[in-house]
Every structure is written in structure tokens, then in C-alpha cells.
């Protein structure tokens, strides 16, 4: 089935605009009782993710990966720097109608059924109701929840909720798919489904930002990889740069990433 809009696919393929562009972005949170303690979550991050690309973002815990995602999705504002989403500034919320987002820990309203949830979220994405009604059964079928579409979400396991999260992210046929630790709670079939989804989105010209700790996902799916340590983007480049040494011989991605964390975390 079609996961992204093919109507826009040729335009995306030809476009030279980046899907995502961060320029000198920093983000500082104010913590503490009187909000006087400043904590820098991102420091001077500049990054471009081209249309049609699958970009993997790696980093240890508290590196600033989720902050980067939140900034991209307008969940918070940068302290300095500018961000563009699908070629438009963040203030243009209409671009969010072309974004799909899978959160690492979804908490959907437990009183809704899977089908009702998708219809509700489709309405909030300003999709025509007919289109939503047409896509909902197909997406539930895709994520393996078709036979439980009328059951309350309260009865769902974590893996089923995560599958539902994937379905809601694909509802609007996104041009930009943001996956924040998407394999959390997914079984082998779920992970395989997610890989298929990412490949299909890319095939139709969509862009994917994949934030994960799981290196095999990065190796299987990503064109380029960014490594974030202590709020700084310490490496951006093709996957091959991390899996091959200077002489071109293969090397372990895990070891390379570990070395990178160790070198840059001080």
C-alpha cells in the first residue's frame, strides 16, 4: 500500500531543498526551583537532511537526541539558531500536516479503540474524513491490528500500542517521518514491519529521521548517520565512514561508535 503521497514524490526527488535544516542551533533548558540553573541540551548544531534520505541519529543517553527531535517538531523552541522543516520555518505549522511522528513511549487515550483513535488523529491532522476512513482499515491491516480495531486501547500490549503509533504516523502519508526510538517494545515482526515502512517511505521520495540506540537498525536502513554527544554533533557522514576504516577495510560499527563516544564525551 502507498504510505507517502506519490503526487508529491517527483517534486521531492527533484527538489534541492533540504527536508530538515538546522543552522547553529542551541537549546538551553532552565532547571531548578527558580529556573536559574541552565542546562545546555544542544550546542551549535548545524545539520541538513536531504529529501528522500534516511538519516540515523545516534548518541548516548542525555546526548540531546530527543531535544533535537522536539525542536524539529515545534514541541519546544531553540535558544539560538534557525530550523527549517520541509523548506519552511518552524513557525509555519502547516508543514506539520506532512510530518509523521513515532514517539518512543506512546500513551494513547485508553478509552478509544484503535480505529477511533486513527479517525480522531486524522481529523486533527486536517485530513478529509473520507480519506481518513479509507486509510484507517488499510493501515490497521498493515500493522497487524485489523482484527482488534474495535477493542479499547486499554487492552493493548506495549508492542501493539507501538504498532498503533506507527499506523498513526503514516495516516497523513508523510513527506517527513520522524522515528524516536521506534523499536521500543516491538517484537521481531514489528521491527521487520518498521524496516519495510522506512524503505517504502524512502522509495516514494519521503525523508526519514531515525533516532535509535540499535546499531543494526542504522546499518540496515540509513544512508547517513549523525552522532550526537553532550549536545554536540560530533560526526555526520555516510554510514560507510563508520563501517570502514581509512584503508577501506570493514570495521565494527559498535566499536567505531563506542570510540567516538569516548573521544568526544569529555
Amino acid at each position, binding site marked *: 500500500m502507498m504510505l507517502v503521497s506519490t503526487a508529491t514524490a517527483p517534486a521531492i526527488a527533484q527538489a534541492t531543498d533540504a527536508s530538515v535544516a538546522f543552522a547553529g542551533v542551541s537549546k538551553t*533548558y532552565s532547571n531548578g526551583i527558580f529556573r536559574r540553573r541552565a542546562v545546555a541540551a544542544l550546542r551549535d548544531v548545524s545539520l541538513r537532511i536531504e529529501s528522500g534520505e534516511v538519516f540515523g541519529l545516534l548518541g548516548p543517553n542525555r546526548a540531546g537526541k530527543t531535544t533535537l527531535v*522536539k525542536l524539529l*517538531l*515545534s*514541541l*519546544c*523552541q531553540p535558544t539560538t539558531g534557525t530550523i527549517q522543516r520541509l523548506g519552511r520555518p518552524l513557525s509555519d*505549522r*502547516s*508543514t*506539520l*500536516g506532512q*510530518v509523521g*511522528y513515532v*514517539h518512543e*513511549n*506512546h*500513551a*494513547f*487515550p*485508553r*478509552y*478509544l479503540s484503535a480505529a*477511533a483513535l486513527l479517525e*480522531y*488523529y486524522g*481529523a*486533527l*491532522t*486536517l485530513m478529509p*474524513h473520507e480519506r481518513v476512513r479509507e486509510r484507517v482499515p488499510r493501515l490497521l491491516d498493515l500493522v497487524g491490528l485489523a482484527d482488534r480495531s474495535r477493542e479499547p486501547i486499554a487492552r493493548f500490549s506495549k508492542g501493539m500500542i507501538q504498532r498503533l*503509533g506507527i499506523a*498513526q504516523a503514516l495516516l497523513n502519508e508523510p513527506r517527513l517521518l520522524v522515528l524516536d526510538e521506534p523499536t521500543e517494545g516491538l517484537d521481531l515482526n514489528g521491527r521487520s514491519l518498521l524496516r519495510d515502512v522506512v524503505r517504502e517511505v524512502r522509495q516514494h521520495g519521503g525523508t526519514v529521521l531515525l533516532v535509535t540506540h540499535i546499531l543494526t537498525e542504522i546499518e540496515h536502513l540509513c544512508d547517513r548517520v549523525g552522532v550526537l554527544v553532550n549536545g554536540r554533533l560530533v560526526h555526520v557522514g555516510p554510514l560507510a565512514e563508520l563501517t570502514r576504516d581509512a584503508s577501506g577495510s570493514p570495521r565494527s560499527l559498535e566499536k567505531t561508535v563506542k570510540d567516538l563516544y569516548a573521544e568526544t564525551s569529555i
Partner: protein
Amino acid sequence: MNPLAALPVLRWLIRDTFRQSINAGVFWLMLALILACVVLCLTVSVVDAPDSSGHLDLGFGAVQLSLAPGRGVAVRTLEGYLAGWIADGAGLLLTLMWTASILPSFLDEGTSSVLLVKPIPRWILLLGKCLGAITFVLVQDTLFLGGTWLALGISTGIWDITYLCCLPLLLLHFIVFFSFSAMLATATRSTTACVFGSILFWLLSWATNLGRHAFLALPELQAAAADLGHGVELAYWILPKPLDCHLILTGILQIDSPLSRVFNAQPLTEHGAWQPAASLLASSLCAVLLMALAAYDFATAEY
């Protein structure tokens, strides 16, 4: 965003709030309370004695209440208790407790981080949820007033439409306190803070309103605490006015209640110290201001 495009979104948010409300346990408790009141009203009979010492029987005569003469006055007095004490007292507190969880659960991190990644402005999300809560309370108030009015009409044969005019007043009173709950929800995202905060706010408003009227009604209090006068007056005009709402309600029904006997509105009105229209307007402005603060906080909050 095109305002017309916002209408279906608001409709979905209201619908979602209805589902959320029905799913809450307090809703069923309130529905049981409404049914109990309707059944109680069906057991009412008014007995007019020739010497004008009539009484009102509840529970098919199990309880007898002496009342001022006249079947109409007796039924209106009972309606005053139903609207003024049960709906506007216990009902309002239960409703505040039950609606307190609507916004915090909507703003929970796992839920909001997906909902806020939608192309609609955040204030529309907040407006939709608040409208949903208000519409649902309107339905409940209508069920309560409509049900008890029908039951009293059937059991006593008195169909006094004035009772139904209390509906907008009850709803306004809820909106004022719910707007405070909404402001707390956007600031703290905590159900506990919303429950206790809105109940404390309700108590504070009652205390201020009672204090202000007591201050004006009792000259000896004015003499003893003259310095407090301006502060109390300022607090009275800023905060919601639940006592005024009660006095207006008893005024609509043209009945006496314990509070209207203590704070007889007549002398206050004569001195221009209590103006029902100005009181309602000030309470409404308080609600608008609190909602605007909640919307601003929600629009600028970082998630």
C-alpha cells in the same frame, strides 16, 4: 488557519472529551446522584392544611418538612435546595473533581507529544477540550434540572418553568471554576494540583464573598477592621462570587434560603453595594482572563 477548518477539529475534540468523561468513574457517580434526586422528587407530595400550616412529604411521607403556606412556594423551596445546594454545591465540587483530570491526561507527555505535532494551533486544542468539558456539564445540568423538574411536576402537579432558568447560572458558575482548573492544568499538568487547587480556589472565593458581604452588612465589623476594607473589596471584585450566584439563584426562584436570610440582599442592593449584573459580569471576566492565561501558557509551553 482557516476558521472553518477549525470547526470539524473542535467537533472531534468535544466528541473525544465526551468519550473521556463517560469513561471516568465520577461520571457514573454523578449520574447516580441525578437519578437519586429524580426518584426522590417522584416521592414528593405537598399537603395544604386549612390553617395554612402546610407541609411537604418526602419519601412517600417518610420525612415531613414544614413549609411556608402555598403549594407553589413549597415546591420552589425544594427546587431552591436542589439547584442551590445539590447542583451548585455538591454537584459543582464533584464536577470540578471529575473534570480536573481531563486536561492533565490530555497534556500527559506520551499523549501531548503526538497531539501537539499536528498542524492546528495549540489554543484550538485547548479550546476544544474546554468546550467539551463545558458541553458535557451542560448535558449533566440539563439532565439534573430537567429530570427533577419533570419528577416534581408529575408528583405535585406544579410545573414552574422558573426552575429551568437556573441552568445558565449553574453553567456559568462551573465555567468560572473550571477556567481556574484549566490554568492550573496547563501550568502543572497535574490532576492532583487541579483537584486541590480548584477546590481551594472555590473555598477562597466563598470566604472572600462571605467576608465582603459580612463586612458591609455588619457595621461593628467595619469599625473593627477598617484597614481590611479596600483589600476585601478588591479581592471580591477579582475573584468569582459564589455567594452572589446563590443569592441570584434564590432571587430567581423568589425563595428564602439560610444564606439569603443572613445576607439579605435587599439592604446591600439599596446601598448600591451589591449589583447582580455587575457581579455576574465580573465573574465572567474572571473566567475569560483565566482561560486567556491558560491559552497563553499552553501556546508558549515547551514539551
